[in-house]
């Protein structure tokens, strides 16, 4: 296996980090940036303040969100034997959106909104697996997808209802903005709360990385090869839901990352999960970090991150499709 894809990913991530710290309304040169970083968070001066309390937490949140969504997408695409699924397939985003909308409706503080979003995502996926587990006569993967669509629709209806009931001057814009996704309000506390959850979800994915490929075979084939398919599948769902929920809680719904990045990762390093997972994590982190840097510095106003990822993601996806998708 050649090393160049990893080199590309490493360089891209480094670029994302440096540009994320340097670019913005207050542009920092290499010397300023280095001095601010070395000076520590308590140093005097504008550069230190900008780097340590604004850009670093936001960059960390972006890296976290990109890594999380891409890992979840890579897992789900293998598990559902379908390169067109995204982390939302089991209703995680709709559930999180409804949790957040309800929390905004009840006037909860930011922490409450995040907790409600996380809980909503978990609840939606939990409901889907519960319902799917009771259906025995059909292909379990198909049942999961269909249950995911149905429950996702229910939760989306709930979001719409919350919007109708919301106070149109304060609550409605805040719900809409949350659903668009963005990191403009990211704080060090957000990162500190989301990071352990993302780590807890990534760990089983990394540990099981050499077995996940079996899920791309039919259930019977994987079972005959010695794999406990239902258990592996459930482990993957729990892990992917944890990382997705944590990401949605701090960033809202950031679309397209979990769909496009796994494709690009497979193009770079091939379909084996043991390689495509780490590649997707690196690429996703870089992608969201760069998108977020653009979101806050490309225009006079801050663009919602979700719009930007869709603007880049959808054409990239079409290009991958047109290319013939050798590795997808």
């Amino acid at each position, binding site marked *: 296996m050649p090393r160049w894809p990893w080199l590309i990913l490493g360089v891209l991530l480094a670029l994302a980090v440096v540009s994320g710290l340097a670019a913005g309304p207050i542009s920092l040169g290499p010397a300023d940036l280095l001095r601010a970083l070395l000076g520590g968070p308590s140093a005097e001066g504008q550069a230190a303040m900008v780097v340590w309390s604004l850009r670093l937490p936001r960059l960390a949140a972006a890296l976290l969100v990109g890594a999380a969504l891409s890992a979840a997408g890579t897992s789900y695409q*293998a598990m559902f*034997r*379908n*390169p067109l699924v995204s982390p939302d397939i089991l209703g995680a985003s709709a559930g999180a959106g409804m949790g957040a909308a309800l929390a905004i409706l009840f006037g909860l503080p930011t922490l409450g909104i995040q907790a409600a979003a996380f809980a909503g995502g978990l609840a939606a996926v939990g409901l889907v697996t519960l319902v799917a587990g009771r259906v*025995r*006569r059909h292909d379990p993967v198909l049942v999961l997808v269909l249950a995911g669509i149905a429950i996702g629709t229910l939760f989306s209806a709930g979001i719409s209802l919350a919007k109708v009931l919301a106070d149109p001057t304060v609550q409605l814009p805040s719900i809409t903005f949350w659903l668009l996704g963005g990191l403009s309000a990211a704080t060090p506390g957000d990162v500190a709360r989301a990071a352990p959850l993302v780590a807890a979800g990534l760990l089983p994915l990394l*540990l*099981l990385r*050499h*077995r996940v*490929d*079996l899920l*791309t*075979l*039919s*259930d*019977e*084939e994987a*079972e*005959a*090869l*010695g*794999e*406990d398919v239902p258990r592996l599948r459930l482990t993957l769902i729990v892990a992917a839901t944890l990382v997705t929920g944590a990401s949605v809680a701090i960033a809202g719904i950031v679309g397209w990352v979990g769909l496009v990045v796994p494709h690009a990762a*497979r193009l770079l390093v*091939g*379909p*084996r999960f*043991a390689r495509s997972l780490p590649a997707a994590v690196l690429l996703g982190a870089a992608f969201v970090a760069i998108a977020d840097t653009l979101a806050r510095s490309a225009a006079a106003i801050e663009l919602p991150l979700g719009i930007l990822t869709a603007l880049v993601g959808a054409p990239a996806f079409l290009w991958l499709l047109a290319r013939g998708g*050798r*590795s*997808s």
Partner: protein
Amino acid sequence: MTLLEARSLSFGYHGVPVGEGVDLVLAGGEIVCLLGPNGGGKTTLFRTLLGVLPPIAGEVRVAGRPLAGWSRRERARLLGWVPQAHAGLFAFTVEDVVLMGRTARRGRFAAPSRRDHDAARSAMERLGIGRLAPRVYTQISGGERQLALVARALAQEAGVLILDEPTASLDFGNQLRVLSEVRRLRDDGIGILMSTHQPEHALEVADRIALLEAGRLVAQGPPRETATPERLARLYAADLAAVAARLAPAGGRP
């Protein structure tokens, strides 16, 4: 030594039997061929013998112990399965696919080891597909895919191989290659249970033939005595004269 045994086995889906009362024994170093028309229950029987489908009634024993008494991993070290070739979805290389056969032979979290790679490599060499190792599984021909799946089962190093119509999608040369490989595996002491739609293949390689009609074993025993033109004509609802003409005369090679 008996490796695989079915006793008054009823099999099917969700409690609805596809077949009933199957008694079948497979020892190491023998080839048993299963003949029967489409929809006769061959694949369902195989799934039940492999333990991926629970029996409705009766029992499957592997190496003397009930199938349910073995863990999945133990089972996969005893029984290897070659399904009918599928198209595949992700662009795995042939070597990746064959390596999946080593799943039950390594730790839960372990990467494929040197030994796993060696086993995969030698399984491919054995079938003459070593040159396909770096090729993409979704881009090779149906016959090459079938050989890759046979190699995967060989890499599994199981004592029993269950092959579901292994020659169905192969050209003439590859059919001969698979059949002669099946014979060599038998000579190495592996027990082989295979289904085929070509009775002449069964007559050529089998030590015993079993005829499955509508989910029941209507006959089993030595090839020439079991797969008679009369029985085959009835089994496949075909013209007796045509069947007799297709089957080579006793002693002749098809």
